[in-house]
């Protein structure tokens, strides 16, 4: 078994290009669970732990988050809480502080777990991932990065190096609906980002990937309860919800309608 610890992004990209089958490990919470449960059969690891350029957090202009920035840092950094409150909120409700101290933004996106909190808020906020390989760098909006259950559009030699979140043009709210305990994953996750008089509502944790319907959102009248209710009903109608241990498909459909209405009332008028 090998564990490589490159100290620069270039070195990591070279290692990944030479060995596309190696598993890249960021914070290691998700991979730690998979490995501990015997669900991963993998002998070669590339750990990003020593790459300091992936741990930078830039807050001038847009928010520029290195892939190795932890959930906890996004939750607690004062300027993030102040200027990107919806984002700080979404990262601040993931599992427990123990997980948030270790889990990273690059990791949670690369896992593409349907029941993670941050992706829906990142999609609502129009966040874009910078994805690098020895072939160059491309920018991928988060909605195009997550393809389905535990599936991304990353090529075998690519790494997420940074996530850029534009400065909000209005209120952002993340609502986490849980059916079990506080540290659990959401049954229904609803994120809303207001853009002047428009809004982007994204629903997560109810299907294979975050769901956003621009056409439905276009009908929004800020602050209008009936409009919020109609949009909630339209989202509930549009999404094919899954059932799992946190709630059946039918239950989720009901909750989606209610939570979308609530989030719209929170970001309006």
């Amino acid at each position, binding site marked *: *078994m*090998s*564990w490589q*610890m490159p100290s620069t992004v270039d070195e990591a990209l070279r290692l990944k290009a030479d060995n596309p089958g190696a598993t890249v*490990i960021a*914070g*290691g*919470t998700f*991979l*730690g*669970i998979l*490995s*501990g*449960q015997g669900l991963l059969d993998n002998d070669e*690891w590339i*750990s990003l*732990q020593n790459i300091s350029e992936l741990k930078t957090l830039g807050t001038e202009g847009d928010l520029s988050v290195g892939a190795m920035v932890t959930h*906890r840092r996004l939750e607690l950094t004062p300027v993030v809480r102040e200027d990107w409150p919806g984002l700080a909120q979404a990262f601040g409700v993931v*599992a*427990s*502080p*123990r*997980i948030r*101290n*270790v889990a990273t933004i690059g990791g949670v996106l690369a896992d593409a777990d349907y029941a993670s909190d941050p992706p829906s808020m990142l999609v609502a906020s129009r966040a874009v991932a910078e994805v690098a390989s020895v072939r160059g760098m491309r920018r991928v909006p988060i909605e195009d990065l997550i393809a389905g259950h535990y599936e991304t559009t990353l090529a075998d030699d690519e790494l997420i190096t940074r996530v850029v979140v534009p400065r909000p043009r209005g209120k952002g709210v993340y609502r986490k609906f849980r059916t079990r*305990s*506080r*540290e659990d994953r959401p049954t229904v996750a609803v994120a809303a980002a207001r853009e002047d008089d428009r809004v982007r509502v994204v629903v997560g944790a109810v299907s294979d990937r975050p769901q956003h319907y621009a056409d439905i959102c276009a009908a929004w009248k800020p602050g209008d309860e009936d409009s919020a209710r109609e949009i909630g009903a339209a989202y509930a109608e549009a999404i094919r919800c899954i059932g799992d241990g946190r709630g059946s498909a039918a239950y989720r459909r009901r909750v989606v309608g209610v939570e979308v209405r609530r989030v719209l009332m929170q970001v309006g008028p």
Partner: protein
Amino acid sequence: MRIELSVNGNAIEVDVEPTTMLVDVLRDHVALTGPRVTCGVGLCGTCTVLLDGEPVSSCILMAPLALGKQITTIEGIPRDDEVVSCFDRQHAFQCGFCIPGMVLTAKNMVEHGTATSREQIREGLGGNLCRCGCYTKIVDAIEEAAR
């Protein structure tokens, strides 16, 4: 893989597979049994250790990820520590199995000033489970320690 870890201020050298979890290194190689494996998926908090002062779940942390960091287990906390004394005074335990994790989480909260109200303490303890149900007294103890 040979790795050198800093545990409770001591340098420890072990030879383990990279996917060995930190809790297993601590228990099986360093003979520190304060951190416990219960759920094995980072949910229950009995394996809590501090990494550079911050609580983490050592049951899902691959050991090499702790390289270069100060690892603190309950064994590294002095007996006369204020948080420990408050747990003692408030009888904030029954079987004691979860207490190392509770104390380490509490210490971090008290040090960061995030134990200012009962609600905030409950929030902070969200990922530490006590099957005896001693939560009320545990919150009492942390409230006292934060005063």
